[in-house]
């Protein structure tokens, strides 16, 4: 069974962390993954940096630019991740934009992910219809789950469609925003969380965008299965450094 599916069946709320590969330093990718797992994080999204990240706010843009400037590339990320499964057991997802994947070759990319032990991909600018027509078969061949996004503006009809096409979890974008733009959840978000919960979707939802501390994590996971922290973690890395990851994780969720 795919590690993501297995993890989603566990009791309790899941904390997933996004970070940009190759940031703050080029060789930090694997040490950060290991530190996150050691500190009780349930799932990791490894950000494949892109020059033009449309859906991201300044924090992830800047970390991506910095990583690229230091020499991060698709090939280098795969090299860094070789052997990661000797020690790391939690689900690993690569999150990035579609163009670098397209240039690497979608099948070659998927094949490499499978060899390394990557469990899924999140490619926000690969649309549902194109995925289904052109790439779903390849993803399935290599056992990779593809996670789709929904937002407060996504219609119920489309959410059903996405639920049907999904494996793993549905990435529930908390608000109409780029990453790192929100500071808390208001009634509008709470209503959205409740609306989605009422839909009784087949696939669990993990909330992303706007989660930065214990309070927003708790709010986001009242109805949803888990939440993803990205920008706030990257800000922490920039300020405090990777040696203190334990402090950040403890401030969000006490390890089980």
């Amino acid at each position: 069974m795919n590690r993501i599916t297995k993890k989603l069946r566990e009791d309790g709320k899941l904390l997933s962390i996004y970070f940009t590969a190759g940031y703050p330093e080029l060789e930090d990718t694997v040490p950060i993954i290991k530190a996150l797992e050691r500190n009780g994080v349930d799932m990791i999204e490894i950000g494949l940096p892109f020059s033009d990240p449309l859906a991201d706010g300044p924090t992830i843009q800047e970390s991506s630019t910095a990583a690229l400037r230091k020499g991060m590339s698709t090939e280098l990320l795969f090299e860094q991740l070789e052997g990661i499964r000797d020690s790391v057991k939690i689900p690993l997802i690569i999150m990035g934009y579609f163009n670098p994947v397209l240039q690497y070759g979608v099948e070659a990319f998927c094949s490499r992910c499978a060899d390394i032990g990557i469990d899924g991909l999140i490619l926000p600018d690969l649309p549902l219809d194109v995925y289904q027509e052109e790439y779903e078969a390849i993803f399935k061949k290599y056992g990779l789950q593809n996670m789709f996004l929904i937002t407060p503006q996504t219609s119920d009809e489309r959410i059903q469609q996405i639920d049907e096409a999904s494996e793993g979890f549905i990435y529930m974008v908390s608000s109409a925003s780029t990453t790192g733009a929100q500071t808390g959840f208001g009634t509008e978000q709470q209503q959205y969380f409740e609306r989605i919960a009422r839909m009784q979707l087949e696939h669990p939802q993990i909330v992303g965008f706007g989660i930065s501390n214990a309070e927003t994590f708790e709010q986001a996971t009242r109805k949803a299965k888990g939440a993803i922290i990205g920008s706030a973690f990257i800000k922490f890395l920039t300020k405090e450094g990777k040696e203190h990851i334990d402090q950040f994780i403890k401030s969000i969720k006490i390890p089980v």
Partner: protein
Amino acid sequence: MSYNVNEKGYYGQFGGAFIPEMLYPNTDELRRQYIEIMEAADFQQEFRQLLRDYVGRPTPLYFAERLSETFKTKIYLKREDLCHTGAHKVNNTIGQILLAKRLGKNRIIAETGAGQHGVATATVCALMGIECVVYMGEVDIARQAPNVARMKMLGATVKPATSGSRTLKDATNEAIRDWINNPVDTHYIIGSVVGPHPYPDMVARFQSVISEEVQQQLLEKEGTPNPDYVVACVGGGSNAAGLYYHYLDNPEVGIIAVEAAGKGIHTGESAATSALGKVGIIHGSKTLLMQTPDGQITEPYSISAGLDYPGVGPMHANLYASGRGEFISITDKEAMEAGLLVSKLEGIIPAIETSHAFAIFDHRSFKPDDIVVFNLSGRGDKDLQTYIDYFKL
């Protein structure tokens, strides 16, 4: 086979809507409604009236006698430089502002490189009394001060794009991010035939008034609606799309697209997307774009701020890949000299973008009785400082 868009938003293998889900409701709303809105009689009436009374259309199709003598062929100039605001860009912004009103939007955002599209957007927002925010790269703000001032006079807010290379592609990223953050009340007026479907088609349709007029005007002057060639410069490709539009599927009319080679195609400082680009995704569209082998989008270079876009509209990518269009790359030097030549021979100072098109005569010849229509897409006022510096005037 048609060279126009298909019902799924593709030109051959190019186009589509490669957008994050956050943009889906907005683009889907547009996709479902744009043709119906644009084809409605009251829309057409308002659009046509504004093009006539406000923009100054139809623009003349002018037989350039001295240029024709010099290059021994029949050269016509479609005078888009005479449009209000000085370029063809306003055809599209007039159309999109009317469309935005019908969609019930009360806030407009736009991206701009040299500032021409920003000015054209700020202009129509002033005309309609709608809030306008224009994203412009920090680098471009510094080098295009007069256009920044014009936008401000017109009541627009100019927001600097400070990410990446701080030029047009980054201004476009920022505008898209703004749209993600303001999905309900805001319409994004893209300035070229780029971006996710339906933008390339929508912008091409608004600009198609150019070839529609050329057909009528040429019929009066030459007894045929069809020139032998239509020639236009291509950055994103909106003026070209407008000139080609009614001729796309007419094999009697040759299509010539002129790209900016910058300092030379192989110098690393170029914007010749067809020559240097590979198929990829930029700003929600699958098209040819300049990128590293790793799929990172690279920064193009051209002396003309309107041509230094790392991608090209999907219509043009398909014209290139299919061989329907003939693509020629022109260096800064060739373009500047052609601009000076047109100024001296015809008394028209073209925008540097447009000057690229006039430099093709060193690269190909025409028969004496060929009718060659150039899109004189913009006037050179905005480029005077560049001309002054280049020629030490």
